[in-house]
């Protein structure tokens, strides 16, 4: 099975006088797992809704396999952030209904649903009303509906929100299976470990614009590529060799400045010279959550001349598309 491709060009969504998304462009290749990241209100869900034809864009084009999506096209599995089920109906009836809406014949939908419920350990709950299930169980049923009929494109908006670690792993395994099957996956999440585990490329949205776009190493490189993890006593003095990204307890994360050496030796030297008692020092690739904090923890724009701004401008340019 080949996955679907996505193309978004100059997408604008205006609510009232506010541009929620402003000139966004990006592509997702068939079979790719794509991370759509951003803080709350950055335009992720708006983009997905427009892509799926649930809302009409103010301007721009959003296509799946070269054409605007219509329900009759099918082949899409979408797990929205705001999700629910027909609470008064039985689990099997709800799953069968969605299966039939996806184009399965009734016996196929029943068989698929039964097998899925067996797999996730809810076979004995099949005839119970949905509202008799726990929140986590309902979420697993929702995921089952999403991946029913092996969709070519899977769009998951915060799929692990509210799940315990066991169910989270189960869910991610199911996503992995769809990936292995060749499906294109668009993942919206705030969990950067999920992004690092699953995604080939990412798009960071900020205020409806692309703040960073590309492969994970590309984005990391754009943000300095590395970060110094320092175990120390006391506070971190200011220096032109680094910028303090985070300081929790005895661990500080320092982002090297453009002038800093790649191995971080001058950062360490600068700290020691300032009288800081350093008990551990390590240079590592800058983690995505650190980038997330940098992007969304600052008000600086992509062209404000700051280090973050320069990084943002760089990744977007390398990603091949401009906000």
């Amino acid at each position, binding site marked *: 099975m080949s996955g679907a491709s996505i193309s978004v060009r100059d997408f604008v969504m205006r609510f009232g006088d506010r541009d929620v998304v402003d000139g966004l462009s990006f592509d997702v290749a068939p079979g790719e797992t794509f991370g759509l990241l951003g803080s709350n209100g950055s335009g992720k869900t708006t983009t997905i*809704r427009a892509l799926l*034809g*649930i809302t009409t864009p103010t301007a721009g084009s959003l296509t799946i396999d070269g054409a605007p999506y219509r*329900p009759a096209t*099918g082949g899409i599995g979408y797990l*929205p952030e705001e999700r629910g089920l*027909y*609470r008064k109906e039985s689990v099997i009836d709800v799953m069968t*209904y969605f299966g039939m809406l996806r184009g399965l014949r009734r016996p196929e939908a029943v068989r698929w649903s039964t097998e899925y419920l067996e797999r996730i350990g809810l076979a004995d709950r099949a005839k119970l009303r949905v509202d008799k299930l726990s929140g986590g169980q309902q979420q697993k049923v929702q995921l089952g509906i999403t991946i029913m009929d092996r969709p070519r494109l899977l769009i998951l908006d915060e799929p692990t929100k509210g799940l315990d670690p066991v169910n989270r792993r189960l869910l991610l395994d199911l996503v992995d299976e769809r990936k292995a099957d060749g499906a294109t996956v668009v993942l919206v999440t705030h969990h950067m470990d999920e992004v690092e585990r699953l995604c080939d490329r990412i798009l960071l949205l900020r205020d409806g614009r692309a703040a960073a776009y590309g492969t994970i190493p590309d984005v990391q490189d754009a943000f300095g590529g590395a970060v110094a993890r320092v175990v120390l006593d006391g506070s971190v003095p200011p220096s032109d060799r680094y910028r303090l990204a985070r300081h929790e307890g005895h661990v500080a994360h320092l982002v090297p400045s453009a002038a800093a050496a790649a191995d971080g030796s001058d950062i360490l030297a600068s700290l020691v010279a300032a009288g800081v008692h350093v008990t551990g020092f390590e240079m590592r690739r800058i983690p995505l959550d650190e980038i997330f904090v940098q992007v969304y923890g600052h008000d600086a724009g992509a062209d404000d001349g700051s280090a973050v701004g320069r990084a943002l401008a760089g990744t977007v340019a390398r990603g091949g598309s401009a906000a």
Partner: protein
Amino acid sequence: MSRLGTVVRFEFVRAIKKPAFWIGTLALPIVVILVSVLVGVGQAAGSDSVSSSSSATKTPFHYVDHSGLVSASVAAQWGGSPSRDAAADRAAVRAGTLEAFVEYPAKPSTQTIRIDAADRGLFENGGYSSLAERVLERSVAAAVDDDEAVALLRSPPATELTAYADGRVAPGWLSIVPPLLYVAAFFGIVILLATRMVTVVVEEKENRISEMILTTVTAGDLIRGKVVAMLLVGLVQVGVVLVPGLVVALAALPLVASRLGGLALDPWRMVVGALLLVGGVLLACGLFVAVGAAVPSIKDASTLQSAAIFALIIPLYAAFFVMTTPSSPVAAFFTWFPTFTPITAMVRNAVGTLSVVESVACIVEVFAAAAVLLWFAEYLFRHSVAQYGSKVTLRQIAGWRRGRPGTH
């Protein structure tokens, strides 16, 4: 099966498989029958009681006769004796020492017979009037030497009316019953349909299902499927009420037909009524879907839902006035105001005061209004189906019309 068919099947099956549906559906005719039986039995018992309590019985009373028609012997048979002092007798009644005092006027045919009497209670007091009338009636009859005249005095003659219209015998009262059944059906459907329709429309929003389902079916197909399913559910409910109703009617009609003029089915009125019913139900659907599409939850729908029901059934309160004065401006308003048209036109059609031209115009109006409302309801639904937690505002709708983004 098409997606539209899938939606129809799902919504229909889940509605009728619920025990609550059958309890509600069957409860309505059962309650109506029970109440009717209780009222009927109660009325029968009440009328027996009143007629027996108000019938004339022999009662000691004094009387004054200014007419000269009262026979002393007849009066004596019923316990009466002439008064010697009217004022004293009245005082005696007030004092409770005399049961009744009757004063017959000089011309009883035009003047009132005055009675003073000891209170026997609201219903029993009617017996005094019967007594005074009976004494006068029997006295007059005793003076007439003709059995037929006496019989006519005692009970008025029966009449048999045959009215003609266009050279043919005009239908009697029973002829309005069949077309009036459409009004009853419309009322029942509106009441039964309102909550169900609003609930199924608002359900996706309330349960946050909209986005998931809209990737598999268009908002248009979804709402059309729901409307069709709810109409089928309505048909089932009407059928459940109608079938036993027809059986009872067929059994009971021969008993009352001779008194009411016979059952007559006017094909024109029946067709007009049926079309008004179908158009009215579609119009009601449009209203209820619009209500469901405008609110985020069933709880938020109650005010608008009540307003929609009122908008449809309020003409029932003016039905009698409209029937008796069909050419008045008020009747015209009720006839032509779109949400009032179905009931008003059905009532006028039943009693034969809706002309052919008016019938056609009303049918066209109802279907046109239903089409506009259903279009607007679907438009509202398409644009608001993924709007969780807040009502649709008029400002938003205006924004949609200006081309601002909304839901497909």
